[in-house]
């Protein structure tokens, strides 16, 4: 009788362990944070950014999170987030949210003013904070910029980036006039960002041909 009770106890424990193993939450959602450079001449590239946002909206599923923020003089701020949303579980509601999101972006693109400085690091820090808070299964930061960081005097951005589990994708990294004179500047700039992301534990990719964006967001 005692043996039987022991067996039942062991079986119960095994079942609890199995149920615990099964019920361990594993997020399957995606979180995408897109930084749009609005400094100087790059503000003229916003039409391309709009296309990327539309493409991303088309790719995201119910339950995914998406935020678009501008990169300006001081980007480590919630005020720079143009629009952010977590799509509803129901596909019909998610579609309505996508439509509203698109309208907000259209309005922003029409009324945008270019900034004097480019605080990409601050934008990335804000993105890390946002995505960590949402805690999706896959975290992606899209940087639509020429990656030329120009900080206003007094702004400190030499903070190591904690990018473990993040994928950072630089999009449409245009060549500046000085890059054409000395291409090493462009290559050094890309390498510097790659090293910074890698040292933070993140994955780094560069996509300049916007026709080949299929791989950046999982189906």
């Amino acid at each position, binding site marked *: 009788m005692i043996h039987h009770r022991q067996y039942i106890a062991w079986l119960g424990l095994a079942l609890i362990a199995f149920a615990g193993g*099964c019920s361990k939450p*594993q997020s*399957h*959602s995606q979180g995408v944070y897109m930084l749009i450079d609005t400094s100087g001449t790059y503000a003229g590239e916003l039409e391309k950014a709009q296309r990327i946002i*539309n*493409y991303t*909206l*088309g790719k995201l*599923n*119910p*339950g*995914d999170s998406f935020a678009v923020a501008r990169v300006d003089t001081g980007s480590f701020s919630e005020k720079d987030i143009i629009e952010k949303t977590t799509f509803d*579980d*129901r*596909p*019909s509601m*998610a*579609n309505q949210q*996508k*439509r509203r999101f*698109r309208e907000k972006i259209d309005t922003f693109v029409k009324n945008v003013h270019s900034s004097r400085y480019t605080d990409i690091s601050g934008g990335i820090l804000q993105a890390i904070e946002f995505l960590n808070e949402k805690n999706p299964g896959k975290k992606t930061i899209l940087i639509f910029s020429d990656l030329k960081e120009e900080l206003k005097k007094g702004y400190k951005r030499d903070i190591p980036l904690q990018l473990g589990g993040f994928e950072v994708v630089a999009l449409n990294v245009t060549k500046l006039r000085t890059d054409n004179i000395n291409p090493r500047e462009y290559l050094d700039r890309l390498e510097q960002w790659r090293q910074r992301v890698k040292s933070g534990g993140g994955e780094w990719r560069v996509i300049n041909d916007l026709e080949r964006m299929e791989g950046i967001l999982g189906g």
Partner: protein
Amino acid sequence: MTFTEVLMIVPGFPAVSIILWLTILSVVLYLARIPAHRAMITASNILHHGLRMAANSVRMAEKNVANRNKEVLLSTGREAAERMIEREFERISNAVHADLAAYPALQREVSEEITRIEEDYKESSEVPPSPPGWAKAVEAVAKIPSSGDSMVANILGEINKSLNKAQGKALAEYRQNSKCRHKLLGGMLPHWRKLLQVTARMDKNISSLLERSKAIDRHMDEHEQIMQRTDRAAQMLASSSMTQFFIASFVLAIAIGGAVINFHLIARPMQEMVGGSSYIIGFKTAHVAAMVIIFVEMAMGLFLMESLRITRLFPVISALDDKKRVRMIWVTFAMLFALASIEASLAYMRDILSQDDAALLASLVNQQGQVAETISNRWITTAAQMGMGFMLPFALTFVAIPLESFVHSLRTVLGILTMNTLRITAFLLRLSGNLFRYTGTALVQVYDLLIFAPLWIEKSARLRSGRHTDDKHALHPTAPTAEASMIGGQS
């Protein structure tokens, strides 16, 4: 000092060293000949006997499986034959109830028809006109000679006139009677036809019963053979089981295809009900819910088929009394109907969602006009999807029939497969055992080949000493050598 240098017995003369080593090796092998032979023969014998025992065990297991398989086959076959006989008897019973229950009425109808026909016949029988009574008187008057008397001539003339008149009247009456009789005979025709039809109907019913009885005879023969447990019956059942298995597998594969289509119809709209981002054990909850709906439909279909006594997978349902069974039929059908309606609505929702997705994508790439054009004919796909959503659950109901065949035939097929696997294993074990046995013998021969020189010397020495010991040998024949006894012993 290298290993090669160690092996050099005579340094600088490798050939001499090799010969010396070979000689040493031959001597050592010669000295160890008998124990080595014993070891080789014993090892091969152990392996041979072990594998033979294993082969025997496997063969016994195969026999057991074959017996079990035969039992299963015969039992399944007996059940099937009994079921068929039962069905045939039910059909006969139904036929008897439906057709022969009306037999007394039919007989009465036939008797009435026959009576009517007889009456008509009697009425129609021709009555000869009665001969006029005054014919003889007329004949006598007619014989009176006229002898030119005008009086007599007048009388005769009047008689002639009266006679002609009476004849005409009789003829008219005769014609009238004939007409009536023809009319009566004509009236008999529908009665004859009706009688013919009734007889044909009876003939058909009887023929049907005769055919059914022949089918019962055939099934009874099969049943008898099964009960006699003949090998022929088992073989026939095995062959039939294999055929059933392949046919059922094919139909089940088609049903699985239908279920997959069904799943795709309802998986997407399910996200609207249970959410599109939740997961259960790594699978989307919406997908799991869609699968559950399909499985519930299949289960309902199974119960419906079971309640209708088309399949017999659940003895509990078959054993229910008719009232409860009919209730169960209605309940399962109602649930199936409800699920089919839900599926049709989900299919409709899927179409709406697809349209919404298309419109959103078009707005994202600025192609609204193009989408509006394609949407104009979408009602066809909407109707098709709804129709499929409604029909597929009912179609999946019939999966129960191949499933039953599959389950029953699977037992036999698995038994046959196990039997063949065991047979092949037994053969391979026996083959390996024999290979080990002959390998042992071959190794002994190879061993002797390696020490042919010492053996040759031994043989020569024996031949020489043989002359001296001939007398001894004549008195005490040579005892068999150890290896000879061993080699002889193993065969």
